[in-house]
């Protein structure tokens, strides 16, 4: 368990003059589930987006699987096959069927054999109970279904590491559970290493090995999930937990 998959050291980000991430330091071990918690605007999404190169950063280093990342677009493009990401808005490609959405990465980016990739996609779709929707277009899916497909689309590349950015935030309440179950399955059965940004406190409590609590672009707490939820160290974290309904 001691293998560090990801190490972030002294990361700083500015939007113009606005300092949005302050000296971020943390690491994630193989198989570990880290949740990023914090109030809106605390920089959670910005931080997680820095980790697959969708946001640039001005200072600091990110080391992935022992390799210090040189943050060029070309390098990120390679790394994104190993660092999967799922977004709040799911954003399936509306011009492609569910199957083609999933196959795009494996067949075009990784040049996998079409037949094999299709079989794998079918297996993954079955695992999220959406086998019947392979030939459907995204507009025919509910939000929850679309988000499950988006997760499958990311997993089809066989990433080593997954980033989930508020993936249930735009779903109807009855859809949330299904999506969270899939993420839990990934963590428990597949032992996937992941960082999860979420507002679902019960889910965070249940899934997280460790919690990073962010406020105003700073990591204020970095402790085990148990410790964070039972006995937060900072008053801000206490306030935050009190304000959440769970």
């Amino acid at each position, binding site marked *: 368990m001691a293998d560090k998959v990801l190490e972030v050291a002294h990361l700083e980000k500015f939007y113009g003059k606005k300092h949005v991430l302050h000296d971020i330091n943390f690491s994630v071990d193989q198989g570990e589930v880290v949740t990023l918690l914090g109030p809106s605007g605390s920089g959670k999404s910005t931080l997680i987006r820095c980790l*697959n*190169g*969708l946001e640039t950063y001005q200072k600091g280093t990110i080391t992935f699987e022992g390799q210090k990342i040189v943050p060029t*677009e070309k390098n*990120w*493009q*390679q790394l*994104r*096959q190993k660092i*999967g*990401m799922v*977004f709040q*808005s*799911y*954003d*399936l*490609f*509306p*011009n*492609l069927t569910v199957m083609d959405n999933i196959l*795009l*990465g494996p067949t*075009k*980016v*990784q040049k996998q054999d079409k037949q094999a990739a299709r079989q794998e996609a079918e297996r993954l779709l079955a695992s999220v109970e959406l086998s019947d929707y392979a030939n459907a*277009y995204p*507009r025919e899916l509910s939000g929850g279904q679309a988000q499950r497909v*988006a997760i499958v*689309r*990311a997993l089809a*590349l066989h990433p080593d590491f997954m980033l989930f950015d508020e993936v249930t935030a735009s779903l109807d309440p009855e859809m949330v559970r299904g999506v969270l179950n899939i993420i839990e399955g990934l963590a428990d059965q597949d032992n996937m290493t992941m960082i999860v940004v979420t507002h679902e406190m019960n889910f965070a409590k249940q899934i997280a090995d460790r919690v990073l609590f962010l406020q105003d672009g700073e990591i204020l707490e970095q402790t085990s999930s148990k410790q964070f939820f039972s006995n937060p160290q900072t008053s801000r974290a206490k306030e935050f937990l009190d304000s959440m309904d769970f």
Partner: protein
Amino acid sequence: MSWAIIQQSLPMFGKGFELTLWLSFVGIIGSIVVGLICSLVQYFRVPVFRQIASVYVEISRNTPLLIQLFFLYYAFPVLGIKFGAQLCGIIGLIFLGGSYMAEGFTGGFNGVSKSQVESGKAIGLSRWQLARYVVFPQGFSLSVPAMAANVIFLIKETSIFTVIAIPELTNTALDLIGMYYRSNEYLFVLVIAYAIILVPLSIILTLLEKRVRYGTFGN
């Protein structure tokens, strides 16, 4: 209003009708090709060509076709470059239409949401793959309404070709009026002739817009 006069003029209008259709067709195809090239150069930020494209778009969109045609027809020969009237017309129409089409395509590409682009990047697509599988298919369908408006616009603009004596529809009507002073009849035929081209086309284009909106894409 005399039907006999109208009937007598129909063969001449027939020729003008054909010419208007032909010039429009070539002009529109040419405009789409030029527009596509300009918008791609701008999308991929090809150095130098990108600047050339934006200068061209600005000049083309901000000068009237009438003046562009005068330039081609009267000024270029002074510089030793001579075109026939019809070629002048086609070049003028493409020069004008190319920029409108370019703006239409560019608008479509820009209309593809940032989150679509990001989710494409997130599965490791290269810049080219992102364009090929995500941005262009969605962008083209977004640009269809602008394209449709441009097609109608360009067909109507062919009426200006009359100033360089291309015998298309408008020129035919004005010629006939000049010869026989029957403006009521000839202008009536002229209006009907444009309507025969533009009304059905406009209906077809509207259907096409609906189809790309509700057919393959969108919510």
